[in-house]
């Protein structure tokens, strides 16, 4: 029910339509803030830091749009916080040169020649914030906790590759048969059912972070809900939180690499309004600003003038229109591929990204360009499947209407298009949310001559219940990838994986995903991925991709080594320092 905040979305939700990202189970967009107990004001830090940094140690001031309260690594609640305060085997850091995966909790990883056995050698100097060492047992506990069917974690499927894992999760096997074996205090071994190149990519994800058994068990139901119960093994510790207001992280002196961590304190402020945040950024009270819309042009000019710096990157998000494959929608028409295509091609992506968002890039494929294979963007290796066909129809209402009519004929529907009403389900109340749905509504009405009714609900919970009651023909949703492999995108459309993408189901597609098991050769995988994407989008029009995500960070000149990460913390502060 946490998403009910969307009812107040105007206040709470910020730059991005948080709803679009809800599908990924917590993205970097939800961010929090607080004050140090000792200071006199929640914002004093913000006010003073601009002048006094250096005297009281290195501090950075950041902005959050909304708050969450999920500190459970296995649940991937607050990824942007977890990646800073916790640490897994590997860390993903992206600089201007692209994403890099570096060893963090692990010193080295041995993979057997057949790709089945992974041996993780942990660094021996890693410690929790209470001084206890991070051991192989913590990883074993964390992973088995993730698989425990009692806990019902979404991300359990992340390690279904591990022998015995899926069986345990499904209640058919025992916890002892899960092939996670602690060899000594700092070594553990994992055996996979089949070789899987995506396994290593998943190691940066928070569900595979270690968890302290003694502390988690003592906390019981409140584990992951009450931050005061947490211990940390990352560069920073959460030291104060005023819910929905502000948050403080301080340097974790017990962190193994503490010497390299230069910031002493990170102050997060919850600032729901962009105008306020921009004012603070202009005055130097905020060090980083996550811009969207017209702010991008404004701050790009500042960057030109040398007043601030910028870090703009692609982000592994794709937003798409989902169709009701289950019932064919309220109109019953969504079962026909030509109808779906006519809807898809009626939307001018280029125009939509520039008019509605002022950022992002038009999408004609499902896998976002931020996903790489062999160090190169997947999209540079695989053509966007629907681009050519889209261009045939784009901005040509007659052709689109003809296509739509063909679809109707195939369905045996004799109703004139002007008497057809399609239902677009949506929620959220930011200008962007509103424009988004009105843009789609208007595009379909103007290009196809149908009527589009908006079923706008107050918040995510209501959205969910409307969706599950199939009170829609189409809705806009998005996926943000959790690890660096095209499979994570393609997998969302596999039968039964997610209820939130219109319940597309094609046995042929499912079989193609299954056929990837054990395939290690990346050229072969690339070919299969392309084939799958083509089947899904071009042949079936299972969903209609609209845009690929991106991030636009602007930061003050005195902020050095500020990084971002697609799979870790959106604002990666691991190496950041202030130099005035």
């Amino acid at each position, binding site marked *: 029910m946490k998403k009910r905040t969307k009812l107040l*979305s105007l206040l709470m939700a910020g730059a991005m339509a948080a709803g679009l990202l809800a599908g990924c189970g917590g993205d970097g967009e939800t961010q929090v803030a607080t004050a140090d107990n000792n200071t006199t004001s929640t914002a004093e830090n913000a006010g003073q830091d601009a002048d006094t940094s250096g005297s009281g140690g290195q501090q950075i001031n950041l902005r959050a749009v909304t708050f969450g309260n999920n500190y459970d690594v296995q649940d991937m609640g607050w990824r942007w916080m977890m990646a800073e305060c916790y640490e897994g085997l590997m860390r993903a850091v992206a600089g201007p040169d692209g994403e890099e995966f570096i060893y963090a909790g692990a010193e080295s990883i041995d993979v057997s020649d057949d790709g089945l056995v992974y041996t993780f050698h942990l660094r021996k100097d890693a410690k929790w914030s209470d001084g206890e060492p991070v051991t192989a047992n913590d990883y074993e506990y964390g992973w088995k906790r993730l698989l425990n069917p009692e806990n019902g974690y979404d991300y359990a499927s992340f390690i279904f590759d591990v022998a015995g894992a899926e069986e345990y999760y499904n209640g058919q096997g025992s916890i002892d048969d899960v092939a996670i074996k602690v060899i000594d205090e700092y070594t553990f071994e994992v055996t996979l059912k089949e070789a899987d190149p995506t396994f290593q990519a998943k190691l940066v994800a928070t569900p595979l972070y270690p968890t302290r058994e003694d502390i988690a068990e003592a906390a019981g139901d409140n584990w992951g809900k009450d931050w005061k119960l947490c211990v940390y093994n990352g560069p920073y510790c959460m030291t104060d939180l005023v819910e929905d207001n502000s948050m403080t992280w301080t340097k974790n002196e017990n962190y193994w690499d503490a010497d390299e961590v230069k910031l002493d304190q990170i102050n997060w402020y919850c600032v729901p309004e962009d105008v306020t945040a921009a004012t603070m950024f202009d005055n130097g009270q905020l060090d980083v600003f996550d811009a969207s819309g017209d702010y991008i042009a*404004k701050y790009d000019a500042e960057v030109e003038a040398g007043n601030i710096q910028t870090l703009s990157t692609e982000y592994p998000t794709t937003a798409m229109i989902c169709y009701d494959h289950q019932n064919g929608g309220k109109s019953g028409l969504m079962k026909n591929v030509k109808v779906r295509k006519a809807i898809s091609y009626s939307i001018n992506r280029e125009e939509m990204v520039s*008019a509605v968002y002022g950022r992002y890039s038009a999408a004609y494929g499902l896998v976002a360009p931020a996903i790489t294979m062999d160090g190169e963007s997947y999209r540079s290796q695989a053509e966007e499947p629907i681009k050519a066909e889209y261009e045939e129809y784009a901005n040509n209402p007659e052709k689109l209407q003809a296509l739509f009519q063909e679809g109707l004929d195939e369905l045996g529907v004799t109703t004139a298009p002007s008497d057809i009403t399609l239902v677009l389900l949506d929620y959220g109340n930011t*200008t962007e949310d509103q424009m988004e749905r009105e*843009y789609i509504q208007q595009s379909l009405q103007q290009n196809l001559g149908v009527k589009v009714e908006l079923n706008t609900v107050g918040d995510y919970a209501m959205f969910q219940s409307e969706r599950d009651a199939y009170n829609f023909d189409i809705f806009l949703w998005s996926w943000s990838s959790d690890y660096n492999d095209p499979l994570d995108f393609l997998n969302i459309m596999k039968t039964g994986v997610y209820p939130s993408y219109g319940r597309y189901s094609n046995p042929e597609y499912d079989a193609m995903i299954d056929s990837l098991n054990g395939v290690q050769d990346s050229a072969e995988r690339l070919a299969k991925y392309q084939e799958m994407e083509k089947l899904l989008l071009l042949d079936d029009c299972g969903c209609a991709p609209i845009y690929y995500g991106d991030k636009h960070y602007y930061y003050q000149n005195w902020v050095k080594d500020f990084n971002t990460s697609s799979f870790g913390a959106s604002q990666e502060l691991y190496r950041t320092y202030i130099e005035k």
Partner: protein
Amino acid sequence: MAALTPDKFKIIGYTQEEANRIDRPTISYWQDAWRRLRKNPVAMASLVVLGLLVILVIVGPLIRGYDYESMNVMEKNLKPSSKYWFGTDNLGRDLFSRIWVGARASLVIALVATALKLIIGTIYGALMAHFGGWVDEVLMRVIEVINSIPSLLLTILIMMVLGNNLFALLVALSVTAWCNTARQVRGMIKQLRESEYVYAAEVLGASPVHIIMKHYIPNMLGILILDTATAIPMFIFTEAGLSFLGIGLKAPAISLGVLISMGQQNMEFYPFQLLFPCLVLCIIVMAFNLLGDGLRDALDPRLRQ
């Protein structure tokens, strides 16, 4: 001093008619009120402005001939010009047309909510005053309970229970508002019942209908009209506030509140998108308020000259 004798007087004639003749034309309460309202330039100006607003709200969207819904992305966020008097919004829609459509919705919502408030409030208040005793106590307690719960909570909860629709919006708007009307009506009726002139009328054998028509209604109408004049802007304003919380009208329906909240998010770059809807809201609210002030002066029997 000479004594007065009857013969010094003579009858110059008199008729019943002459005795009852009134030299000045009778002015009813309403005529008098209207006369005094007309003398109040501010109130009259407000009335004219309101008349104009009503006309604009009806024909405004047609003046420029742009559809308030259809987008035209090529012309988004244009500044006010001779083509688009109030500029365009993010999807290139004519703000001038949209504002009048929005104002129409705001006005209609306010009028309906006010009507609900008046009807419920008057009946409730009259019941309290009529029955008195324990009925009065119980009904009064209900009002106290409603008033003690923060209205924002009530409003949000009602919208959650009833869903995000027009009906729920109207209920949520009027649910706390009628309490005040009920209290005023109750107080007024109680006061009237015990006032000397109503008592005198009763003693003189006036029928209940006469008393209701001649005493209760004129006295109460003043309050109710005033209540209306202040309630309408209040509702317009509250509806605008709800839009900020995301529980106002659903797109593509727009109200001034929706327009203001959308304009607010663009205020740094396109201030006119915020300015114009705010201006129209201010004018409507101000006109109703000033008219209300004028009406109060005009309807107050004590100010009758």
